[in-house]
C-alpha cells in the first residue's frame, strides 16, 4: 500500500500493533524511549494466571518483528508533538507518516507518595515491581541477606485512593498480588504470607481459580483491610497496622518484608498529548478513546489511534488485543482515506 505508520511506545501493545501492521503491508516506525523494546514486562518475571515467563511472550513478539524490512525501530527517543501525518521528536526531528498509534502505556505509581508505608525509608518495604526484579535475579532476600519468614502484600497502593488522586482501579494488582504470594510461597513454603486487600477483583478467566488455589493449597492469608502505617521494630522488622474489617478489630503484626502492589498511573506524557496535540484525557488522566464501545482504539482526532494501557489499566493479553485492533483500525482508515 505504501503507507507509513508511527507506533509510539514499544511495549506489548505497540509491538503487537506493529507486527500486525507489517503483516498488512504497512511500513512501521516504532518510537521507544528506553534503549530496547519490551516495555514494562521486560522487568517482569512471570505472567498471571498461567505463570508464563514474561520473557517467553516478549521473545515471541520480537520474533514477529525481527525480519521485516518495513520496520524501523527508534529507541531512546520521545515524541513531543503528534499529528496524524507527522511526529515531532523531543530532539526536534520531524518524522512524516500517514497515521499514528499511541501505545505509550502507563506509569507505575511512585510508592514514595504513600509515605506512611515507608517505601524508600525502611529497607524491606518493596514494590511489586521490585519483587519481580528479585524473582528475575533468582533470589528474594531481606536487606540483611536472610530469607523472609513473614511477608505482607498490600493491595491498592496508588489505586482507588483519593488521597493520592488515583480514584481508578488498576485492575491487575489483585491478581498480581495473588500470583506473587504464590511465587513467594513456592520459594519459601514455610513462610507466612498475608495479603491485605480492599476488594479482591478477579476479573479474568482463571483468576478466581488462582485466588482459591492460593487460599486453599498455598495457605496464603487474606485480610480485608488497608494497612494504615508501617513502623520499624527493634529487631529491624516492620510493624504494620490495619483493620481486619471482617472481624471489626484493629490488627497489628511485625513482618520481615512488605510488598506494595503499586498501581497503574496514567502516563506522565498524557498531559502533553492533551496540551500539545488536541487529544482528550479522562479524569483519571488516561486517554479518552472516541467511544468506549464502537471506537475504543481511536482517539478524538482522525488518524491517531490508541493501543494498550494508555487508555486504561489493562493486562498483557488485553493490551495485545488492542494492538491488533488498533492495527486493523489503522488499515481501514488508511484505505478509506
Amino acid at each position, binding site marked *: 500500500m505504501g503507507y507509513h505508520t508511527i507506533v509510539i511506545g514499544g511495549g506489548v501493545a505497540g509491538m503487537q500493533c506493529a507486527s500486525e501492521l507489517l503483516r498488512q503491508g504497512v511500513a512501521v516506525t516504532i518510537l521507544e524511549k528506553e534503549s530496547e523494546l519490551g516495555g514494562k514486562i521486560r522487568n517482569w518475571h512471570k505472567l498471571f494466571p498461567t505463570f508464563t515467563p514474561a520473557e517467553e511472550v516478549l521473545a515471541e513478539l520480537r520474533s514477529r518483528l525481527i525480519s521485516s524490512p518495513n520496520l524501523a525501530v527508534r529507541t531512546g527517543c520521545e515524541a513531543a508533538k503528534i499529528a496524524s501525518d507527522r511526529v515531532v521528536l523531543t530532539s526536534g526531528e520531524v518524522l512524516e507518516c500517514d497515521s499514528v498509534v499511541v501505545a505509550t502505556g502507563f506509569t507505575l505509581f511512585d510508592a514514595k507518595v504513600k*509515605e*506512611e508505608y515507608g517505601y*524508600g*525509608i525502611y529497607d524491606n518495604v518493596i514494590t511489586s515491581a521490585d519483587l519481580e526484579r528479585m524473582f528475575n535475579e533468582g533470589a528474594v532476600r531481606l536487606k540483611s541477606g536472610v530469607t523472609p519468614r513473614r511477608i505482607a502484600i498490600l493491595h491498592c497502593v496508588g489505586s482507588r485512593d483519593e488521597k493520592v488522586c488515583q480514584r481508578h482501579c488498576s485492575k491487575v494488582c489483585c491478581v498480581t498480588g495473588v500470583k506473587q504470594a504464590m511465587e513467594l510461597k513456592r520459594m519459601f513454603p514455610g513462610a507466612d504470607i498475608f495479603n491485605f486487600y480492599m476488594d479482591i477483583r478477579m476479573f479474568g478467566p482463571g483468576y478466581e481459580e488462582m485466588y482459591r488455589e492460593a487460599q486453599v493449597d498455598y495457605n496464603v492469608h487474606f485480610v480485608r483491610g488497608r494497612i494504615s*502505617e508501617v*513502623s*520499624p521494630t527493634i529487631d529491624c522488622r516492620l510493624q504494620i497496622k490495619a483493620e481486619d474489617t471482617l472481624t471489626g478489630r484493629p490488627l497489628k503484626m511485625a513482618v520481615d518484608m512488605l510488598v506494595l502492589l503499586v498501581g497503574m498511573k496514567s502516563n506522565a506524557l498524557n498531559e502533553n498529548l492533551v496540551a500539545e496535540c488536541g487529544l482528550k484525557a479522562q479524569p483519571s488522566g488516561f486517554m479518552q478513546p472516541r467511544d468506549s464501545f464502537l471506537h475504543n482504539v481511536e482517539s478524538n482526532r482522525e488518524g491517531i489511534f490508541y493501543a494498550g494501557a494508555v487508555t486504561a489499566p489493562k493486562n498483557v493479553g488485553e493490551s495485545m488485543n488492542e494492538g491488533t485492533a488498533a492495527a486493523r483500525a489503522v488499515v481501514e482508515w488508511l484505505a478509506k482515506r
Partner: protein
Amino acid sequence: MKRSSWTDYQKDIADDNYYYARSCIRQNFFPGSEKVFLDILSKDLGRDIYDDPLHTSCTGIGYHSDVVPLETIMTVVARQFALMSEAGYENFTSSCITSFGIYTELLATWEEFPELEERTRENLFKATGREFKVPKNLAHTSDVMFHHREEIARKAKRKLVNVYTGEPLKVVEHIGCHYAKIFPKKGIGGSEFPYVLAGMVESWGGEIVDYPERRHCCGFGFRNYLVQANRGYSIANSQRKLESMAPYKPDFIVCNCPGCSMFLDKWQYTLAEMEGTTYGQNGAGIPVLTYEEMAGLVLGYDPWELGMQMHQVDVEPLLDKMGVEYDPSAKYLGGDGKYIGRPESAIVNSCSQEVLYKMKK
C-alpha cells in the same frame, strides 16, 4: 537520619520579630520552659520576641471538648491576631500545639470560607472594637527553635551525648497530633515523618529512636482525659507508647506539645502506682523533656532554672549522663531561695524493678 522525606515538607519560618502566644498547659506545668524560650530567643539568639500581657487562652481545650462554639473561638483567635497587629508584629508563634492547630485550622477555614472571616471581623469589632490582620507567618515555637537549631548548636555548652560512654543519647521524639496530622504541609517533615524535633536532636548530637508506636497519640484526647471515667482509655494510649519504646532504652522523651509532655510524664507515675510498671532503665521512669528544656540544657542553663524540678519523673539520672552540674539541694528551693517542699517518694522514681517484682507478688 536515614529518611530524607522531611525535606519535601518545608515551611517558611520567620527569622525574627515574633509575637508570642503562651500555652495554658505549658505555663502552668512547665513555666520554666516558656521563660527559657523567651530568654533563648532574646538573649542567646538576639531576636525580638514579644510576650504580650494582653493575650489570652485560645480556648482550644474548650473547643475540642465541645464547650466553646466555633464562632467564639474564631473571635478569640481574631483578638489575638488583633493584639499582634496592634503591637506591630506580623509573625505569630504559639507555644501550644493545640493552639497552633487551631490557628492553622482557622486560617484555612477563613481561606476556604471568606464569609466566616467577615463574620468574625464583625463579631470582634462588636465585642472589642478591634480589627485584625491575619499573620504573615504562623509557626509553632518548636518550628522557631528548629529554625535556629544550627545557631544554637554553635553556641552549645554541651551536647546530647552520654559523657561516660561518648555515645549519643537515645531520644524519643513525640510530636503533638495537632502539629501536622491535620495539615501535613504545615509541619516540618509532614505528618508521617515529622522532623521538627528530630532535627534539633540530630543537630545537638543526639540520636533519634524510631519505634513502632511513634505516631501514636499520647492519649490526652481532651474529652478522654477530662472525664474521669474515660481516663482508662487515655492512659492506655500512653502505656502503649511507653511499652513500645521501652525496649529501645531511650534516655529521654522530648515533646513539642505541652499536653503530651505532661501526659507522658505524669501517666508514668500513674502507671507505676497502678500496676507497678516503670519503663526506664534501672527501674525508674523515662524523663520527659520539653524541647525548650532540651535547648536550655544544651545552652548550659541550670536545670532548676529551667523548672525541671516540676517533672514527675526525676531528671537527675539524665543530667548525670549529660554531665550537667547541678546542686541537688537546690532542687526544691523557690525563686526566693526558700524551701518549697518536696513530693513524697513515688515508685516511678525510687524503686528498682526487683523491688517492684516483689511488690507485685
